């Protein structure tokens, strides 16, 4: 588990899964041999995978395909396997258009585009253009990293903006999330618990410098970018200094080039943000559509199983 944590800081959903693994391990009968125990645990994990991830994805897909009507314009942000699956299965039976909103530094929306552009007519726009793109949109479908007990949702940075823009225009916002992403934690704002990405991701303005062997600390993002193969794990002594080579704006160059001391500003590359309850219209999970206020109720039901 420590290895997993070293590779990538655990999201809440992953935390839930690890808790489940621990529970399985504790449930192993003491008289089983080591091989038998391993088989037992592996089979439990396999059924978790099938049930809570794969099958859940299917039933969420079905629910959302039912919600999408012909001639709808659907907006989505970034990318997630679940969203891609929903969109491709919806494209088989419904006629709709898609607006993909994307943001630096990860440009995850390109993944969504790649997956569905062959079957859906798409529009791609940056986050700064989302308010304008919302003009024609009839519903917004978002993916989540974690759903908290107070009904709010943690999702890749930028999601909260899309949700609040949509809410301002009274456009329904539907969040697709499997039930393993439900957490009994409560968070009131985005800063309290978040993940920092590498600052070079946002400071680097020239993509060719990025691929020229930029040095990234252990907290590198997990391969959404095309140049993943060129990444290398390097020491992260003073991260800010390493980025001096990549800064190209004149003002920053002059102030930072002054040797191995701290840069005059902090670079904060937040990965997640928090969408409050009021901006979410519905959550699609395995059990169908539920209002965001029902997250703790589902957690209670799942725990009592």
């Amino acid at each position, binding site marked *: 588990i420590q290895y997993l944590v070293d590779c990538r800081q655990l999201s809440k959903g992953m935390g839930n899964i690890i808790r489940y693994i621990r529970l399985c391990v504790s449930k192993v009968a003491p008289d089983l041999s080591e091989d038998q125990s391993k088989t037992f645990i592996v089979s439990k994990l396999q059924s978790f995978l099938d049930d809570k991830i794969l099958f859940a994805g299917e039933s969420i897909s079905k629910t959302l395909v039912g*919600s999408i009507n012909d001639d709808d314009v659907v907006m989505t942000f970034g990318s997630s396997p679940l969203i891609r699956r929903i969109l491709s299965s919806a494209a088989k039976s419904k006629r709709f258009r898609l607006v993909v909103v994307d943001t630096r530094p990860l440009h995850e929306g390109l993944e969504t585009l790649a997956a569905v552009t062959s079957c859906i007519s798409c529009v791609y726009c940056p986050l700064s253009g989302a308010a304008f793109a919302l003009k024609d949109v009839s519903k917004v479908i978002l993916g989540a990293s974690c759903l908290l007990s107070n009904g709010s949702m943690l999702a890749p940075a930028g999601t909260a903006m899309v949700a609040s823009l949509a809410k301002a225009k009274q456009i329904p916002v539907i969040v697709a999330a499997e039930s393993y992403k439900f957490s009994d934690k409560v968070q009131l704002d985005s800063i309290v618990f978040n993940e920092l990405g590498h600052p070079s991701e946002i400071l680097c303005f020239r993509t060719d410098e990025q691929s020229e062997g930029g040095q990234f600390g252990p907290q590198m993002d997990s391969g959404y970018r095309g140049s993943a193969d060129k990444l290398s794990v390097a020491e992260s002594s003073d991260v800010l200094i390493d980025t001096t080579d990549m800064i190209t704006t004149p003002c920053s160059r002059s102030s930072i080039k002054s040797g191995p001391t701290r840069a005059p500003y902090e670079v904060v590359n937040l990965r997640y943000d928090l969408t409050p309850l009021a901006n979410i*219209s*519905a959550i699609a999970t395995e059990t*169908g*559509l539920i*209002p965001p206020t029902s997250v703790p*109720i589902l957690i209670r039901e799942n725990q009592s199983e």
Partner: protein
Amino acid sequence: MPDNTLDLFRSLVSTQVAIPVAAMNVLVAKIQESKAATWMELELELRNAIALLKSAQDEDLGGRTNISLTSGCDLFMKYVTRAFSMENLEFSACKKEVIRRGQRFANMSLSARTQIAAVGHSFIQDGYTVLIHGSSRVVSALLLKAAETTQFSVIVTEGQPGDINLERVKPFLDAGIPTKFIRDSAVGVIMEEVDLCLVGAEGVAENGGIINEIGTYQIALVANALRRPFYVAVESYKFSRMYPLSQKDTLAMTRSRRSTTTTATAASSSSSSSSSSSSSPTSSPSPDTTTTSALTVDLPAVDFTPANFITLMFTDLGVLTPAAVSDELIRLYAQ
């Protein structure tokens, strides 16, 4: 057998009992007279009966949509089949248990109106002006109960099909409640005199919003803008798993839109009054008219009021916030 179901249903509805309660009584009767020997058979018979009931025509439903019928039947099935999976008794004992549960559910639903009146009437205080909309018998029961102990006045909206409906206001007048009639378009004007709004519902969506007679949404919007509380009095068997995201979704789900197309002619003989079901073809123009484009008349029967406009709901389970609806449904459906 099929004929028997609908006849029994109709005879029960005519006794002024709520439609879903009538349906539940029909289903209990069906279980009692069933000759099934296994659970699967019995369940199949029940499902067939429910399908028949759901296909009941508008006339049988007294002008309402079949949402409450659908949700009532579905909840009945859930409640009744719960018993079955738990016991390991032989079939006849199980059947008795099912009948007992079915009757209990039907009776609970029947007494829902009195229970709602009991929890809700104290929200009306002396000197209040209450605005009501729609023809809910639950609301009437609540107001009559309140009238026993409180002095208040009622403002009744026009509603459908329009104009003064003395039948509807007779119970209030008989009880000595000062009653005022206004047209739907006057709700904005009158709202400043109103202390609380009270409506019933034909169905309650999973997100806590309600489906009710057309005009409810408008009243909720006005009440919200002028900060007046908006209460809904509804039985818990009307909670359904519908989740409309917009008005269009609601009308699609309830199949309730009624619109016709007419050609505006000089002799407006073909003008529509609220005719039934979906768009009928354009009537052929009379020979002496100049070509005019067809006028579409759109008369949806229900609308959807989202949960954020509803202050509280008076139900037979107590006074609930709209968010609690989903709680109830998850508890019932997740077992």
